[in-house]
C-alpha cells in the first residue's frame, strides 16, 4: 500500500501516540496501582500513589506468614489465601480434565459419525449455552441440596458437587474441538478401519494423537473458565476453608473490615499466574472468541 509520509501524516502519528498513551494510562492505572498498594505499609490510602516506603507486610500475610508489628503485636493472616488458591486450582484442574474428556468424545460423534438430528442437537446445545447459569441459581441450589441428602459428598459445601455442576458447560468446547477434527483428513482413519480397527481404536489411537494441540487449548480455556467462575461457587460453597479464590477475595473489602493493602497483595499473588496463562493462551482464545464465546 503506497504511503505518502507527509507533514500531515507525522502529525497524525503524534496525535495517535498521544491518544494511545492517555488510554494506556486509563487501562494500566488499576493494575499498577494495585501492585503499588500491595507494597505500601498499612491498609489505608496515605496520599501517595507511588509508595515512599516499601513494606512486605501484606505479601507476608498473603503467603500465610504472621507479621510482627513495630509495637510487638502480631498480626495473623486474615484469610487462608493459599488454601483458596489451592482449592481453585484443584477444582479447575479436575473440571477442565473432565470437560475435555466429555467434549472430545461428543465432538468426535459430531464430526465423524452419522446419527439422527445431528444438526438439531448441535444447534440446541449452542443455543442453550446462551442461558446464563447465574439465572438458574435457585434451581441449582435446590438440586444440589437434594443430591446432598442422598449422596453427602456431592451436596452443598463440597468440591465434588461444584465440579459436577461445571460439567454442563461443554457446548462451546464441543464446537471448538469439532471444528479442529473437521480439518483433519478423514482418510487416515478410514485406512485404520480398513486394517480392522474399531471406532474406539481409530478414535483413541489415530485421531486423538493428532488432536493433542486443540485438547490442550480446550483444557486451558476450561481451566480459566472454571477458576474465574463466581456465581455457582458462591452459592455452593459458604464455609471459609472451603472457598475458591473467586468467592473468598471479596471478604477483604467489607466496610467493617477494610483490608485494602492485604487484598492488593493477595490479588497480585493470585491474579498474576492466571493472567500469564491467559496471555500465553491468548492466540487460541482469540480464535475461540470469534466463534462466539464470551468471557464470564
Amino acid at each position, binding site marked *: 500500500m503506497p504511503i505518502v509520509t507527509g507533514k500531515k501524516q507525522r502529525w497524525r*502519528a503524534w496525535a*495517535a501516540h498521544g491518544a494511545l498513551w492517555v*488510554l494506556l494510562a486509563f*487501562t494500566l492505572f*488499576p*493494575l499498577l*496501582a*494495585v501492585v503499588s*498498594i500491595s507494597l505500601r505499609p498499612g491498609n489505608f490510602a496515605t496520599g501517595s*500513589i507511588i509508595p515512599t516506603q516499601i513494606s512486605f507486610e501484606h505479601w507476608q500475610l498473603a503467603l500465610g506468614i504472621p507479621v510482627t508489628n513495630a509495637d510487638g503485636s502480631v498480626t495473623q493472616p486474615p484469610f487462608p489465601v493459599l488454601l483458596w488458591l489451592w482449592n481453585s486450582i484443584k477444582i479447575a484442574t479436575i473440571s477442565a480434565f473432565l470437560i475435555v474428556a466429555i*467434549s472430545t*468424545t*461428543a465432538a*468426535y*460423534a459430531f464430526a465423524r459419525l452419522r*446419527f439422527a438430528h445431528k444438526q438439531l442437537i*448441535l*444447534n440446541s*446445545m*449452542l443455543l*442453550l449455552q*446462551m*442461558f*446464563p447459569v*447465574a*439465572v*438458574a*441459581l*435457585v*434451581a*441449582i441450589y*435446590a*438440586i444440589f441440596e*437434594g443430591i446432598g441428602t*442422598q449422596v453427602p459428598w456431592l451436596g452443598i459445601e463440597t468440591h465434588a458437587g461444584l465440579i459436577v455442576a461445571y*460439567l*454442563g*458447560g*461443554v457446548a462451546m468446547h464441543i464446537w471448538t474441538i469439532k471444528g479442529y477434527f473437521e480439518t483433519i483428513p478423514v482418510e487416515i482413519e478410514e485406512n485404520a478401519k480398513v486394517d480392522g480397527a474399531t*471406532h474406539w481404536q481409530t*478414535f483413541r489411537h489415530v485421531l486423538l494423537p493428532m488432536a493433542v494441540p486443540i485438547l490442550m487449548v480446550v483444557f486451558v480455556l476450561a481451566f480459566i473458565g472454571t477458576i*474465574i467462575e*463466581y*456465581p455457582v461457587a*458462591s452459592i455452593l460453597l459458604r464455609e471459609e476453608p472451603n472457598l475458591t*479464590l*473467586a468467592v473468598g477475595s*471479596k471478604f*477483604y*473489602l467489607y466496610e467493617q473490615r477494610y483490608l485494602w493493602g492485604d487484598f492488593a497483595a493477595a*490479588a497480585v499473588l*493470585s*491474579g498474576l499466574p492466571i493472567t500469564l496463562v*491467559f*496471555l500465553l493462551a*491468548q492466540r487460541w482464545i482469540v480464535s475461540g*472468541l*470469534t466463534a*462466539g464465546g464470551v*468471557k464470564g
Partner: protein
Amino acid sequence: MSTPARSRWLHHGVAALAALALLWLVFNLWMAGQALVAVGALAFGSVALVVYGTATSVAWKYLFPGVAGMLLFVVFPLVYTVQIGFTNYSSAHLLTEERSRQYLLDQNLVDEARARPYTLHAEGSAHRLRLAPGEAGGEPLLSPPLDLRAPPATPVVMAPEAATTPANTIGPALDLKAVIAQREGLQRLALQLPGGERVQYAGLREFGPIEPLWTARPDGALVQTGSGRVFVPNRETGYFESAGADGEVERISPGFTVGIGFANYSRMLLDADFRGPFVSIFIWTVMFSGLTVLLSTALGMSLAVLLEWEGLKHRTLYRTLLFLPYAVPGFISILVWKGLFNQNFGEINAILDAVFGVRPAWFAEPLLAKMMILIVNTWLGYPYIMILCAGLIKAIPSDLYEASALAGASPWTNFWKITAPLIARPLTPLLISAFAFNFNNFVLISLLTDGRPDFLNTKLPAGTTDILVSYTYRIAFTDSGQNFGLAAAISTLIFLLVAVMALVQLRFTNSPEGRR
C-alpha cells in the same frame, strides 16, 4: 475362538451388575421419599445402560456424557426454575406437605407439672440415675447401674430407692460438667416409673413425661394436644390452618410448598409496592447493557482501526498492553476497582481531592454509582470488541484501501465508507451476544456494588444499581424471606428475554458456520 465368547460373557456380566446397582440406587431413593429424583435416576440410568450395554448406536456412546451433562445441569435447572416460579417455595415454605407434617409430629412437649429432678451417680464405669420427688410428689426412685455409652433400647424400670439400697451406698451426685459429658446417653434413655408412666430426658436437671405436640388424623389434618384444635392443611396458602372462635385464622409454622399459579407473576405486574422498583431495575438493566456495549464498541473499534494503521510504531506492544484488562481475572479486577473507588480510602478520590478538591460518594449516590459501573465495565469490555474488530478488519481486502488512497480519501472517509459498512454485518450478532452477556452480568454488579445504594421505603430490599439477575439473587439468597418462588419467576422472565435475544442473534447469523 474362546476370546470373543469370554468377552461377550464379561460384557453381559458387567451390564447385569450395572443394572442391579442402578435398581438398588433407585430403590433407595424411592424409599427415602425422593420420588422425583428416583424416577430421574431410573430414566438416566436405563438410557445409559441401553447406550453402553447394547449395540444400538455407536454415536450415542460418544455423545451421551456431554448431552447428559447439558440435560442435567443446563436444561433441568431451566425447567426446574420455571416450575419453582409457580410455587411459594421460600424459607417459610421450604418442605413438602408430608415432610412438614412429619416435622410437626416430631415436636414434643414436656409436661412440666409432672417432671422430676434427677441426679447422676457414678458406680464404677456405669452410672445410676436417681429421681427425686417432683412438684407432683412421689417417692425417690433409683435405676439399676447403666452403661450410658450404650444405653438400653427398652425402657429402664425404676425401683423405689428404699427397696433397693440404703441411700448412703450410692456415690455422691455428679456435678453439672460430668452430667453434660453423659448428655448423649441420657437423651436416648427412657425410664419406666412404678405407676407405669414413662419419663424422658427433659434438660440437664429434669426427666419428665414427653407428649407429642400434635397427633395426625387420617385425613391429613393435625390435632393440637391439649386444646384439641384441628389444623387442616390449606393447599392454597401452604399452611396448616385452624379458624378460631372469633373467625381469626391461625397458622402454624413451618408452612409447606404449594403451587400458587401465576401469583408471583401478578405480583410483578400488579403489586404497586413491588412494581415500582422492579420497573426501575428493568430499565436500568437495559440501559446498563446497552450503554456498556455502545461505549466498549466505540472505544474498542477506534482502537482496532488505529492499531491497523501501518504508519504507527510499536503496534504489537500497544495491542498487548491494551488487551490486559481482558486477561486479568474478572473477580480480581472488579474488586480492585471497588477499592480504588472507595470514598474515603480509595486512590481515585485521593487524586480527585488533590486536583479538584472533591470527594464524590461513588457508592452512596445512585447516579455516581451507575457512572462508576459503566466506567468499570467499559474497561472490562473494550478489549473483547477490539480483538473482534481487528480480526474483521484484517479480512477486508486491502485493494479497497489502495483504491481509496489513489482517490485521496481521508482516514475518516475510509472508516465510514469502507471499514464500518464491511464489519457491521458480521459484528452485529457478536454485539447482540455481548448485550445478552451484560444483561446478565451478575459477577460485575455483585462484586462491585452488590446492587447498592438501595431504594428507600421498599418492602423487599432493592438496589438502584441492581440488574434483574442480581436482584433475583438477592431475593433468593440474601434477604431474610429467601423467596425462591418469586426469584424463580423473575428468572423465568429473564429466560424469555434471553430466548428472544438468541433468536434475534440467530437471524443475523443465519447458519452456525457463519460464526467462524
